[in-house]
């Protein structure tokens, strides 16, 4: 090895310079070291906090495995940690088919998904949350090929939740046929509720408005964004192109009423 290097010192040096020059010339190279450091600290956070459920390769096959939970009406829900290698996200503020924006992932990591036993990581330093966010992006090639779309803005009007809006919302719930899946009275027992499958081909149950909290948290804004963007990978479709903004808020009013959170 030593000999080889000695004999070829000039070639190696020239080569290194050439490659270095190339590396410096191409954009974003400056950030590489910083990025690598962030990924490294993200990996550490991941291994301590997330690996048990999401698995070494982010494919959701961690030691924790499948969790089964009985719904109040007796049906058994199977809960799988997300396969992060798929690069499909449910809880976005971006339209269906898009990657989430960074803040969406931060929100999920901070709040967790209590209904699915994913804990909240609010207590972690913000730098750690950011680092683990960047680390989980390395599981899917989608982050190299696509940019997230513009998030959908959410501006709650003052009248949301008032009785008139609830009444209008009830009609919209019927027109939009939310009941086909979620049940005509919102109990998650619509005529199609037993036939739904997720991307993995596993059965998935629609949300029961009368018992649960939303996976992403039950604020009016979260209800709005859920049916506007759809929950990619689950069968919950996007109504972005089916409802104008006003009608969407009436629908929120009605579903809050179903959840006994309105008025």
């Amino acid at each position, binding site marked *: 090895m*030593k000999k080889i*290097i*000695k004999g070829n*010192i000039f070639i*190696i*040096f020239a*080569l*290194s310079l050439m*490659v*270095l020059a*190339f*590396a410096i010339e*191409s954009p974003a*190279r400056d950030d*590489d070291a910083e990025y690598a450091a962030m990924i490294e600290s993200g990996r550490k956070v991941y291994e301590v906090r997330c690996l048990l459920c999401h698995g070494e390769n982010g494919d959701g096959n961690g030691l924790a495995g499948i969790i089964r939970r009985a719904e109040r009406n007796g049906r058994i829900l199977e809960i799988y940690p997300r396969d992060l290698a*798929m*690069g*499909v996200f449910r809880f976005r503020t971006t*339209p*269906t*088919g898009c990657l989430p924006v960074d803040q969406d992932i931060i929100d999920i990591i901070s709040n967790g998904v209590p209904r699915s036993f994913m804990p909240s990581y609010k207590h972690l330093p913000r730098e750690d949350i950011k680092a683990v966010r960047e680390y989980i992006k390395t599981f899917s*090639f989608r982050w*190299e*090929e*696509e940019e997230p779309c513009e998030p959908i803005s959410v501006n709650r009007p003052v009248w949301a939740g008032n009785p008139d809006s609830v009444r209008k919302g009830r009609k919209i719930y019927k*027109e*939009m*046929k939310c*009941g*086909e*899946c979620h049940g*005509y009275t919102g109990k998650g027992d619509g*005529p*199609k509720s037993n*036939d*739904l*499958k997720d*991307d*993995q*081909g596993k059965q998935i149950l629609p949300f029961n408005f009368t018992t649960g909290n939303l996976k992403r948290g039950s604020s009016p804004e979260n209800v709005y964004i859920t049916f506007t963007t*759809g929950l*990619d*990978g689950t*069968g*919950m*479709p*996007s*109504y972005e*192109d*089916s409802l104008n903004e006003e009608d969407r808020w009436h629908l929120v009013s009605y579903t809050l009423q179903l959840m006994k959170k309105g008025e």
Partner: protein
Amino acid sequence: MKKILVFILLVALIIPALSYAKRTPRYKAVEVTNGGTIKGTIKSENRVDDPVIPIRVKPKGDPEETRLEEDTCGSSQQAMMYVLSPDNEVKNALVIVEGITHGRAAPKKDITINNLRCRFEPLVSIAYVKSYYIIRNSDPLLHNTWLGKVLNAGARRTIFNLALPYRDQVIKKPNRVAGLINVRCDIHPWMRAYVYSSRHPYAAITDAGGNFEIRDIPPGTYKIRVWHEGFEDIIKEVKVKPDSTSDFRAVFTNTRRPFFMK
């Protein structure tokens, strides 16, 4: 000094290697002047009967609505999966030139997927990345049109999922993802369609006589995949010579059950 040199060398080699590994190979559009043609026929070894799909509408809250769905969807559907000519030539097979790295630019051509009488129209189509999907609902029912890229392990990856609660509703969505895509409707689990979304123009669908033709291919040797929802894939190599036509014949031997029948 030597150690430093080795270090510099390693770092210098690793940095670009890392950034290259991140990049995925893309298709390059070039002018093709002496391109060849692949032309041929796809057959089935055996006669296969086309199944009838039974349809059972679950009662809805409003009997009026149940009736509307029964009237629109009917009580059964001919699958139109095995559409064979008298000589067992197969319609709706996709013929795809795989792994092609350069050639003519893909056309700008939007495709329409229509929800019509509780089936998707057309069953098989070819779409082009950077063009648009136009999703239409012609039924007075809620349909949802859910596109997913077909993955190896029988799973799929959502591309988008749209609710279409109104009759004559039309939604336009950009096509960003290449590959074989299946289309589903949760409300009507028997509904299905397939799209091959392509970065290049070198894919075709067989007609009722099992025929296809793919033109203007840069000369070279290519892997051809023949895909059909009800048959196991066939992969064959073919040589394309300048300004001439290569004959391509393939025979499906094994059937398979598509996802909507599982």
